């Protein structure tokens, strides 16, 4: 019997790409929200919060993601709350990326010079008026490219969820299953790479459009 690449295989990969995309968007969103709150909290003048959250970030960024997947999944099972591998993976990915986002957010908040914030407060603005109208817009423009880079990395990191054996599989695992059957690794990996490229490139184009909008208005000094 001859094994060849079928239409079903193609749709199997499209499904995998869809799962990769959804995992990226969902964990990117959750992780950004968490990372924003963590990074913001670390700019508060509170020694304890700064160092506690700093330790969280250090651990998250220093332990390989694949270990975090397994540890979190096992930990929940031991506690008596076994999770669906997708949910478990999604939470792990969100926590993981939040550690990186937190540092980017902190840098963004700190990119507004102290005197600019004093000027805003000096006009009678409250802390939140200053934060929302001055610090956020300046910070977003400063660290948006770095954040985009994190999201592109996250998309490729989603493939490590395979260690939890989630089905249906995401793009890379789907590709490996097809490779095992038809023994055509080069063609399939080329195809999988093309899928990743198209999805990442879409994010890049989307991000570029925002940045160019700011530049055209001469908002970036």
């Amino acid at each position, binding site marked *: 019997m001859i094994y060849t690449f079928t239409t079903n295989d193609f749709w199997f990969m499209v499904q995998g790409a869809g799962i990769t995309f959804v995992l990226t968007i969902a964990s990117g969103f959750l992780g950004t929200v968490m990372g924003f709150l963590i990074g913001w909290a670390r700019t508060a003048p509170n020694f304890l919060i700064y160092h506690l959250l700093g330790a969280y970030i250090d651990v998250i960024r220093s332990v390989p993601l694949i270990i975090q997947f397994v540890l979190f999944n096992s930990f929940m099972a031991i506690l008596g709350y076994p999770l669906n591998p997708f949910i478990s993976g999604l939470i792990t990915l969100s926590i993981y990326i939040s550690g990186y986002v937190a540092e980017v957010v902190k840098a963004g908040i700190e990119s507004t010079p102290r*005197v600019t914030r004093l000027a*805003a407060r*000096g006009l009678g*603005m409250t802390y939140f*008026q200053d934060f929302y109208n001055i610090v956020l817009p*300046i910070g977003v*423009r400063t660290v948006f490219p770095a954040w985009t880079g994190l999201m592109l990395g996250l998309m490729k990191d989603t493939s490590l969820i395979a260690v939890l054996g989630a089905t249906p599989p995401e793009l890379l695992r789907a590709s490996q299953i097809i490779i095992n059957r038809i023994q055509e690794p080069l063609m399939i990996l080329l195809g999988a790479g093309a899928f990743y490229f198209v999805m990442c490139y879409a994010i890049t184009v989307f991000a570029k459009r925002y940045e160019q909008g700011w530049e055209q208005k001469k908002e*970036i000094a």
Partner: protein
Amino acid sequence: MIEIRDVHKSFGKLEVLKGIDLDVEKGEVVCLIGASGSGKSTLLLCINALERIDRGKIFVDDIDVHSPQTNQDHLRRKLGIIFQQFNAFPHLTALNNVSLAPRKVLKMTTTDAQELAVQHLERVGLGDKVDQYPAQLSGGQQQRLAIARALAMNPDYLLLDEVTSALDPELVGEVLDTLRMLAQDGMTMIAVTHEMPFAREVADRVAFFHEGVIHEVGAAKDLINSPKKKRTQEFLGNIL
């Protein structure tokens, strides 16, 4: 009226203000002079509560600035402050730099706030720069923008922290002209400055800071032309 009573302020072990007493009447222009690090700029930040004080009291129109009962955000509307370093909001046009606080703090409508902003931009000679971003303005224009932004809140007092020190020499004049105009209009100002000719011409009184205290204070012309104390003579001798 601003009343400063025995104000002390330390940063860590360094005591920057060691008991400052000063009254500034409505309509008065007072210049603070003295070497860098003598506490002049810190005092300005303490007057509108951008820095805390360790001891003493500051009253602005009989409001105790550092009392926990005082709404400091509200109080700061009375006191415009302009800094040495450029601090225009880089993501906003000149128009929106000036109209932002009237919209957010005074809850004016966008139309009213922008109308007000145009008036103040014209007043400081930036009527043709309304739609420019700060990056497109010169240093002198950015400082005048900062002045217009402060004036749009209709403050009773202006605190000026070496507003010409970061400017190229040929741009200093245009900013000083703007301040002269404000003094003539009766604006109450406390200005930290190294521009002695300006202080002599515009200020009613001058206070000389030395090592965290007001070493000598007096009518502007008297103090600058014939200082009584030795430290003041030395300082003026060095910079004039």
